[in-house]
């Protein structure tokens, strides 16, 4: 919600949103409240997707499924056949496999799956926001193909070294002549083939912008119980 203010995500005119990995639904709720207050009810469309079932939320279309699965992606896209979405948000947190590198990989695949869905449903100039962008540096080059601006951010007062960083992609503008494809060849998993002299996964440095107010509650600080 802090990033909403910083990046003016839900400014006037925003009415159609896809909320990926939405359970238990706190973001969906926030979206629903904010959009339905600002826009006429008939314009607002919120599609929320998760593996887990969610409690119903007013004005939110809920789908249950794996966002990396082609059939789920197709279903989401079908809701946006005519009018495209203004924003896609994804808060996917994969189950931990215990293998650090595998966790990182699956996290990246979730983001890629979300990006793939995004290319089908997002209007030109739209935004894509990924929470939990700790490992996003792996995907920067992919994101840059589709968006004019990509930044990593973190609430200024956030906990040290936690995963609360998120990625904000502004101004969707796919390459000329790009036709979204469900089995996503363009987005396929070739993202780190260019190994340099250094061993290990090749990471890209993404601009960092802290957001939020310094005077905000410091989640790291231990406050007395006054």
């Amino acid at each position, binding site marked *: 919600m802090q990033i909403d203010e910083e990046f003016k995500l839900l400014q006037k005119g925003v009415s159609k949103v896809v909320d990926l990995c939405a359970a238990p639904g706190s973001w969906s709720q926030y979206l629903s409240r904010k959009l339905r207050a600002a826009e006429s009810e008939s314009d607002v469309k919120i599609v929320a997707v998760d*593996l887990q079932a969610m409690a119903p939320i007013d004005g939110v279309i809920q789908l249950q*499924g*794996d966002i*990396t*699965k*082609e059939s789920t992606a197709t279903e989401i896209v079908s809701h946006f056949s005519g009018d495209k979405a203004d924003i896609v948000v994804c808060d996917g947190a*994969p*189950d*931990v*496999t*215990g*293998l*650090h*590198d*595998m966790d990182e*990989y*699956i996290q990246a*695949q*979730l983001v890629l*799956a979300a990006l793939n869905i995004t290319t089908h449903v997002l209007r030109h100039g739209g935004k894509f926001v990924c929470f939990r962008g*700790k490992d996003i*540096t792996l995907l920067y080059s992919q994101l840059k193909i589709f968006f004019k601006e990509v930044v*990593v951010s*973190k609430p*200024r*007062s*956030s*906990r*040290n*070294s936690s995963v609360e960083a998120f990625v904000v992609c502004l101004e969707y503008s796919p390459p000329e002549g790009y036709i979204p494809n469900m*089995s996503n060849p363009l987005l*396929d*998993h*070739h993202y780190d*083939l260019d*190994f340099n002299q*250094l*061993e*290990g*996964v090749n*990471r*890209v*440095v*993404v*601009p*960092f*912008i*802290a957001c939020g107010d*310094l005077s905000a509650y*410091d989640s*790291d*600080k*231990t*406050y*007395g*119980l006054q």
Partner: protein
Amino acid sequence: MSQYKAICSVQRVTAALLVELAADLSHQYLLLGTGSEVCLYSTESGKWSFECKSDVLHGRVVHGFRKGNGDIIAVFGQKSVTILKLSIEDTKQIKVEVPLIEFPDWILDLVWFSDSSRYAFVTAHNILCIACAFTGSVLEIHRSSINCILYSAKLLYSCNKKVIKSAADVYVAAGTVFNDVIIWNRAQCAESSTPSILHILKGHKGVIFDINIEYDSQLVSSVSDDRTVHIWHYDFPVNGARTWCDAKFQLLSVCHGHTSRVWAAVILDHKTVISIGEDANILVWNVDGSTRKKIKAHKRKNIWCMAVSNNYLVTCGGDMSVKSWELSQLLHAEDSSESIVREQINAVEVKDFPRTVCITGSSCFMMTDQGCLLARHLAQGSKLCVLLTDDRFRGYTVMSSTWAASDKALIALGSAGGVLRLILVSHDLVVEAVNDLDMCTGKVMSVTWLFDANPLSSPLLLVTDTNGEMTLHEIALGASTLSVSLMGRYHLPKSKQRFVTAACLAYGDDLLYLVCADMVGSLHLYVSEERITETTSLATLPTCSLSKTHGKGGLTDIHFFSNYIHTVGRDGFYNKWSIIDSQLVNCSQFKTSKQFDWIAKLIPEGDGNTKLVVFHNTEVLLYDLLAEQVVLRLDCGGGHRSWAFSQAEGCHYFAYIKDKTTNLASKAATLPCTRLVGEHHSGKITDCRMFSMRGRDFLVTSADDGHVIVCEIVNAAFSHVSHEREAVLKTRCSTLVHISNTKCLTLTPSLAGNDDVLVFSGGGRAQLLVSVLTCDADGEVTGAVKSSMNVTKGVSMFRRQSKDDNSEDADVRIMAITSHPLRHYTHLISAACSDGTIKFILYDEGTQLLHLITDFIYEHTHCLLTLDCVPVSSDLTLLISGATDGRIILIDFTQILNSISGNLSKMTTRKKVSNSKSSSNFTLIQPFMQISVHQSGVNAVSAQCYTENTLTICSGGDDNCVAVSSVDLQTKEVTSLKHNHQHSAQITGIQSLTADTFVSVSIDQRLHMWSRPSPSDDKEWGVESSKFVSVADVSTLCCYRDLLVVGGEGLVMFRRSHM
């Protein structure tokens, strides 16, 4: 230019395989994958030896091994595969047969074609590929019709022949995110272009982590996030073909027993499945889903992976250790009674006989009727020794023993004439010290050691006299002395049998309490006292007394842990109590599922598990509460007046006195396992330091698991001859335990004029711990905790032990720590805390006491993350701290030092000030200056003064930025240079090396060496070289001479060499 080379590491094992090699069938071989390395071990009859290792995946992580023909091994990890040949002729060697090949997708499983010319692998996108073994070129690609991300997959043979000649012979069992196991193959629909799904196994309620098959018994296992193992049976129609297409799957059983995620399972034969998981347990199952055995095989959390052969099970734990278990013993259904060893021990004199018995460590102590104290080791056939004989202890003695530092036993004896005798006995049963005290006029009614006091602190003894007066004593151990000081005096209410049977210290309402039970089963609660000196002071009365808490039979044992008081009794009940407003409040009461009638003892084991010693009919049982099973059963003919139970050196011992002799029964406690790789931290490493002591080099690490571990660095000294030699870390001691996690540590030489080194460590619960490391000529290091303090309250934490982590977040954490030697054996410790304060604490090596100095207070609005202390000039020393708001704060430390030095003696002798804020004469410290360079938290700072009046501060932040700030100390002018483009994630470690070089490390797993052409050239800082760090979640960096250690989930040590 200098370069760093990795010389050793401590990392978890991510893959294991037991193999037999055609070239040598007399040994079993084991391959382990740690990081990008493969290690080879061999065994002959159970003794394992390390053979060799090799880095084969270069910066990737080994995920699996698959054996092909002719001792060829395919190693896969992430997206790459390499083929190795194990050569074991003269020298054992791992040879690379086909160098590393990088494929486009993440590999989950691999199988060899029958002739080893090709292999098939399945990827995380549910794609099956066939590749040429020699060139690695991909020959075929088959996509499943279900296009999704997999968490696991296993490649299967066709069900009637274990032969693979083409892709059509390979079947994929895929573990999905949406709880299904999907079996598919490309051949079934050769005509249509999409491969078909043959089976969907539905039943799990979470992501699938592992799938396995056993063809003979037609069983498939799957394990999941849902904490279960599912066992599936497949069969074929009576007259149908035996193909996967026609097979019918049936869910045979669902195995519930793991308390957390299950990582893997294997099917051993027609009736056994073994699984491992996050709860660090090995579970042995019958295929009907019933548990045959449950073994807590590793410390704390996780068994990451396992390997099985006909003889062994190898498990690799979250505690970094690797253990090998004999399969035959593991599969044994119930422990048989044959393994019980029984012995009888008689008194030395014919007419004499033992009256009481107790066990501590690996020794058993007996007091005889004639006043003779006997001792012997528990091991079968050990020699009996007479420790002391004294007429005063004839006919009547109360006895109790406890563990004292370095494997010694401390025995308390109480006589009929009021004498209390304390005896310190060494491990080899030599009396090292004796102290006799006149306690009371009448009989000493009971002596009780308080076990729940911090085991590292001095032992505490509670003595009851005939008048119901209880006295609490602290026993300080010297080299050959035992000094006793009175800690408190308590009044035990009148009752028919007025003496204590069980007692413990408990913590509640922010106060320390003494809880004790008398012979008739009443429970009493007392507010504990500060150390008292006047012997005339009045005895404390209980704030709460409850009678008959465990029925008529009475209460048998009390312990305090996890914030509750736990009691058990002869009514078979287990009660939990908490302290609210100085009253005991019952929180739960239950009987075990087995309905025992007499619970005699409660053994808290940490990790949330508890065992009970129970008398049931004619047997004594050891019952595991968590596993809900009897782990030991001994026939002893019923309950006994004097008995003792212990678990020592892999054995359970039970001693009891019957018919005037001591009966000692013993039985192997746990399954014998061999440790191939020893334990290290079982949590994230948070800080590390290196030092030398008596010519040896050591590494000290602290971690989330609350431990501080000291390892010797062997062979790491730089030498031109042994240029290539790697280092070995030998764990020397790991006894220093924090009650919560440990965040930081600092080392300093002792001022006592010996070679000892002091360790100050800080962590959760505002705990500061002082320990001393001593090294003997053989390099054996002993660590002894000397003092412990809650730095927010300024009170000793030794007896305020509670292992509960619930309230941790509300608590203050010490985030970073430095120390400064003063005179008079005194050190000044600065501790940067999560509440934004820096606390100053004095430690006196002579008295071993910590004093919180409340005269100085530094308070920042945000949590402090890091701290460094820099002598700038002869009259200025600065403390430099980084905070979560991106600020670097400089504090004039000299001022503080000066005023403390002047008042040193006054300060250390002053009475404790209970509330710092209200004391009038404190100074609020103003920062010398503040620098804002980072957008968010400053995780690391390192500062040096290389030229006069200019301070260079290197800092690394949560904003991925490395900053170098030059501070003109005269004008307080700052020039900061920010480097945003070298690290792609948070910087968590930084260290200034020389005026022209520093190193930084980040959780992007990069170690950067920075340099500039000349100190005057502020703008020219650049990364000179970089190194990949195989440790995930890097959190700390330290340099010492030419060594550099990076810690996180494991650690890597580098050595610098100049080129």
